[in-house]
């Protein structure tokens, strides 16, 4: 039985060191092939006709003119007469043609008649939605600290108790806050290139779920998963929106079958934004009460938002966020709109919940005239998540102290709205904190050691941006005592051993579990052979600097190649397996992280323009495999956070239901000049290292909304209630003097 473990703290030679991505050069030079770059010989281009209307019924579809167009190979009607359409862009028909332009032109020849139905897309006004009968209750919880006497009705007691808490509070704040729908805006849109080899489908799919999508292709095509190979060597962004082939992936495969040609079907930019997922909106009306130190004692909220034409929105389970007062009532309402369906978006629920809750907490600090830092510190007693058996409060406290030092909080702090203006410009500080799971998923990893010493590995994972290849190579190189460059990593095919989808920040934990296990098992076998040769016990051996040697005695050793030659004619193959359902408390990985973020902004009071001055992100993630790629993830997440805090939102025309800014020209995103000085700090005391690996792709994107909103409020002395904090919203808020 092998004792799976990581090297002792401070003793690792590859992991924990900064390494460039092993595929970085390919990516930087354009040699890396993304799905969009896959162009098999004879390929046709497919395009989808999206419905121009948000809510309608199909009266008729006539594809005959399109079918007759020169260069058109196949036209399929996706919808039929009588079908109801619930969002703009929904797929009506698809065309495969010789050229991309020809496919687009043919779409114009498809004649569709629609019966228009009433459109409802506004998600920010709860009363209007109720009036339009577009709301659906999503539950209500109430929890109070005290227990009722036996003879008292519990519900009545809870309500009365909450009221009493508010009466006794030193400060009560009533606030309104909001986060509109945003999209994923993957640089590479959804889509695939498919071709058939006899009855076998080969699908190059832009996916964050290589191992899980073959079966999803197979079922609707009425073939078996073993007849499908899904490939994705590189993906241009997913953020939670690319777990499935989707209807357009299946259509692509069908068109390829029908035309007996490879077919490429990638969504256009506007389709990508309209139909391929978005992050649900959240708006909240909340009343919170606190004692004179700013400790929140009671919370009463109703929040709403839309996930599209079905119920959904920000889960009430995470409202209030992380710092949960002892007494609370929370109610969630879904708003049904004629808009595209939501999908998981980097840390689902958390960024909105954080922006809806920790803004309110900051308003308590403003109301009491306290330092926001102190109020957050005071409320750490209410930190809900746990790391193992320990409260997260201690982690947050240490991270807050570090973040405050990095942003120089104490020197820069002023009370809300009380800073010294320089001309028209005021500055401010804000903070927020967050949590996430990030534990590993089940999977396998094949490690192959050749008699000539070559090492390769296969697993059906993918690189969503995590640096997956580099992480796997680091782990295996560490185990074998080899340089990083000697390990050849193969990922991105469903033909490889089944591995994790890349969602929930599980990738690094998952591939570390399986690749460490596989390589430790392989090394164990090599030690057995080497031990005989060196005439020592196998447990006296170590793999170090390209040699298998007796611990502490490098003279008694074999080179890695000499040791591998002992394998004989054939390569050694070991499959490492991991399943969190059967392995409890793995020494290699863990779950649950915390992070603290602080923002410093400057606001031009007369134009409403907000500029980021500095942003500090402190984050734990257990044992860090590659600090360089970890920091990249944090930089990326913070920039994405600045994007939704200051720039991006889906804008719907309320009359027509058109998503009117569904183009990169109109959908605002920050540029490097907009993000200011970003400082990312990995928090890894030895206790973190001992926890093993935890994923971090998502958590650093959670806090920026609240932290930046709080900083702007601190600068202006006025809350700009709804993100993103555009010049319009800032000036409107100043004009209203902070009244909703």
């Amino acid at each position, binding site marked *: 039985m092998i004792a799976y473990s990581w090297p002792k703290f401070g003793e690792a030679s590859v992991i924990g060191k900064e390494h460039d991505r092993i595929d970085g050069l390919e990516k930087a030079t354009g040699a890396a092939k993304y799905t969009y770059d896959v162009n098999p010989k004879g390929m046709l281009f497919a395009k989808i006709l999206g419905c*121009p209307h948000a809510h309608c019924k199909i009266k008729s579809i006539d594809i005959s003119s399109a079918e007759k167009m020169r260069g058109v190979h196949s036209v399929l009607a996706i919808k039929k007469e009588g079908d109801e359409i619930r969002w703009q862009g929904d797929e009506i028909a698809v065309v495969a043609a010789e050229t991309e*332009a*020809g496919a*687009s*032109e043919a779409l*114009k020849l498809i004649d569709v008649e629609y019966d228009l139905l009433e459109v409802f897309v506004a998600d920010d006004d709860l009363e209007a939605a109720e009036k339009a009968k577009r709301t659906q209750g999503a539950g209500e919880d109430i929890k109070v600290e005290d227990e009722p006497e036996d003879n008292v009705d519990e519900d009545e007691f809870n309500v009365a108790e909450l009221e009493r808490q508010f009466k006794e509070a030193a400060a009560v704040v009533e606030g309104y806050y909001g986060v509109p729908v945003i999209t994923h805006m993957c640089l590479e849109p959804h889509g695939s290139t498919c071709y058939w080899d006899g009855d076998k489908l080969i699908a190059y799919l832009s996916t964050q779920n290589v191992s899980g999508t073959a079966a999803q292709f197979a079922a609707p095509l009425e073939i078996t998963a073993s007849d499908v190979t899904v490939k994705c060597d590189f993906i241009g962004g997913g953020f939670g929106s690319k777990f499935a082939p989707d209807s357009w992936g299946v259509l692509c495969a069908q068109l390829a079958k029908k035309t007996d040609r490879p077919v490429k079907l990638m969504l256009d930019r506007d389709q990508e934004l309209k139909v391929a997922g978005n992050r649900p909106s959240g708006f909240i009306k909340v009343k919170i009460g606190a004692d004179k130190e700013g400790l929140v004692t009671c919370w009463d909220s109703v929040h709403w938002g839309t996930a599209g034409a079905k119920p959904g929105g920000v889960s009430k389970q995470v409202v209030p966020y992380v710092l949960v007062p002892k007494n609370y009532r929370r109610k969630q309402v879904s708003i049904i709109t004629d808009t595209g369906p939501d999908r998981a978006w980097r840390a689902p629920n958390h960024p909105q919940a954080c922006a809806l809750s920790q803004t309110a907490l900051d308003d308590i600090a403003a109301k009491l005239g306290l330092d926001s830092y102190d109020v957050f510190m005071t409320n750490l007693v209410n930190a809900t998540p746990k790391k193992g058996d320990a409260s997260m409060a201690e982690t947050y406290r240490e991270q807050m102290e570090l973040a405050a030092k990095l942003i120089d909080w104490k020197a820069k702090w002023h009370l809300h709205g009380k800073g010294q203006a*320089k*001309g*028209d*410009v005021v500055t401010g500080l804000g903070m927020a904190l967050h949590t996430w799971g990030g534990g590993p998923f089940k999977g396998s990893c094949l490690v192959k050691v050749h008699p000539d010493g070559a090492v390769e590995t296969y697993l059906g994972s993918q690189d969503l941006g995590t640096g997956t290849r580099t992480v796997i190579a680091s782990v295996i190189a560490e185990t074998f005592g080899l340089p990083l460059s000697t390990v050849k990593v193969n990922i991105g095919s469903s033909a490889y051993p089944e591995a994790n989808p890349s969602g929930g920040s599980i990738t690094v934990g998952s591939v570390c579990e399986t690749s460490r296990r596989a390589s430790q098992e392989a090394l164990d076998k090599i030690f057995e052979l080497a031990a005989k040769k060196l005439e020592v016990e196998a447990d006296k051996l170590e793999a170090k600097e390209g040699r298998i040697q007796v611990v502490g005695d490098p003279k008694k050793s074999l080179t890695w190649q000499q040791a591998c030659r002992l394998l004989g004619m054939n390569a050694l193959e070991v499959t490492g397996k991991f399943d969190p359902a059967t392995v409890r408390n793995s020494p290699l990985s863990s779950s649950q992280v915390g992070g603290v973020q602080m923002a410093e902004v*400057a606001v*031009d*009071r*007369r*134009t*409403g*323009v907000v*500029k980021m001055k500095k942003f500090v992100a402190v984050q734990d993630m257990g044992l860090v495999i590659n600090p360089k790629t970890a920091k990249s993830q944090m930089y990326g997440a913070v920039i994405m956070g600045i994007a939704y805090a*200051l*720039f991006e939102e889906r*804008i719907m*025309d*309320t*009359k*027509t239901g*058109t998503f*009117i*800014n569904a*183009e990169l*020209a*109109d959908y*605002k*995103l*920050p*540029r*490097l*000049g*907009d993000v200011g000085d970003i400082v990312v700090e990995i928090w890894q005391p030895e206790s973190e290292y001992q926890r093993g690996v935890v994923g971090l792709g998502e958590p650093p994107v959670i806090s920026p909304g609240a932290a930046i909103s709080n900083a702007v409020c601190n600068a202006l002395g006025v809350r700009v209630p709804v993100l993103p904090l*555009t*010049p*319009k919203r800032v*000036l*409107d808020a100043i004009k209203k003097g902070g009244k909703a």
Partner: protein
Amino acid sequence: MKAFDFASPVSEAGVVGLLSGEPGQTEILAGGTDLVPLMKKMLATPDRVVNIMEVASLRGVSADSLAVTIGATTTLDDVLGAPELDDYPAIKQAIGGINAMQLQGQGTIGGELCQRPRCWYFRNGYGLLANRGRLVVEGDNRYHAIFANDGPAKFVHPSRIAPALIALGATLRVVGPGPQDEVLLPVAEFFRAPRHEGQRENVLAPNQLLTHILLPTADGVANATYEVRHGEGPDYPLASAAVALQMSGGIVTGANVVLGHVAPTPWISHEAAQAVLGWPVNTQTARVAGEAAVARATPLKDNEYKVQLASVAVERALLLAAGLPLEGF
């Protein structure tokens, strides 16, 4: 994209000869940064695209003692780098604000003036006037006009350079439709607010070609452009202003103030110009001029905030032209 014929003539007469008199039947291709996306969206569906980048006479910057001439296909990047234009910071600041080397390197100054509006109803296929303006009035008009929005056109003209050219008194040379036809017209008269769907936002006939921009000498003319931008990206400003001032003994003796992104055409503010005439430029007079510029603004339901932005843009453009420090970004 609809299939089209492609022509690449090498002379101005050759270009004009290939253009149709029917609106939309032919399109002129310069840098293509706007035309190509319009064609991909099938908002422009020409039968023929006439590339003018091979016409040598259309390219480059030249100067004599009276004027500077800029060819229509001179790239924005070349305009930025032209020493002949060092006395025209208003132009260079406007181009600098584009903040995208791809657009600056590929886009041309003629194309910058002739680009189509960014109104999202237009770009989503509802027509330039979007149901005679009704969709805009009832819909989301946060970026639309705050002046001259009582007609069917509610969009804002997208050109970032036009306000500076107008303030500086520039003239355009236009050829066609006949091979010998040639007119010079002030930039201010080039733009118009369309009254009917199908009309364009400038006076060029479909078979006319904008060839050159002629700038009078800027000797002693203090000039500047200030744009209020949401961020540092290539996005269009929320409001902008260009000013050109003649000064004598520290007093403004002549002033042109032109606002951008506030009306269907560049918006000349005589009120703002009048307000600074006879005064030195300082924070007080600049503010008064800014307020005068927006006194008659008629914001729509979502763009009240633009009134203040326009006012601040005028104020800061004046301070910038006078070489005074700005109090904001």
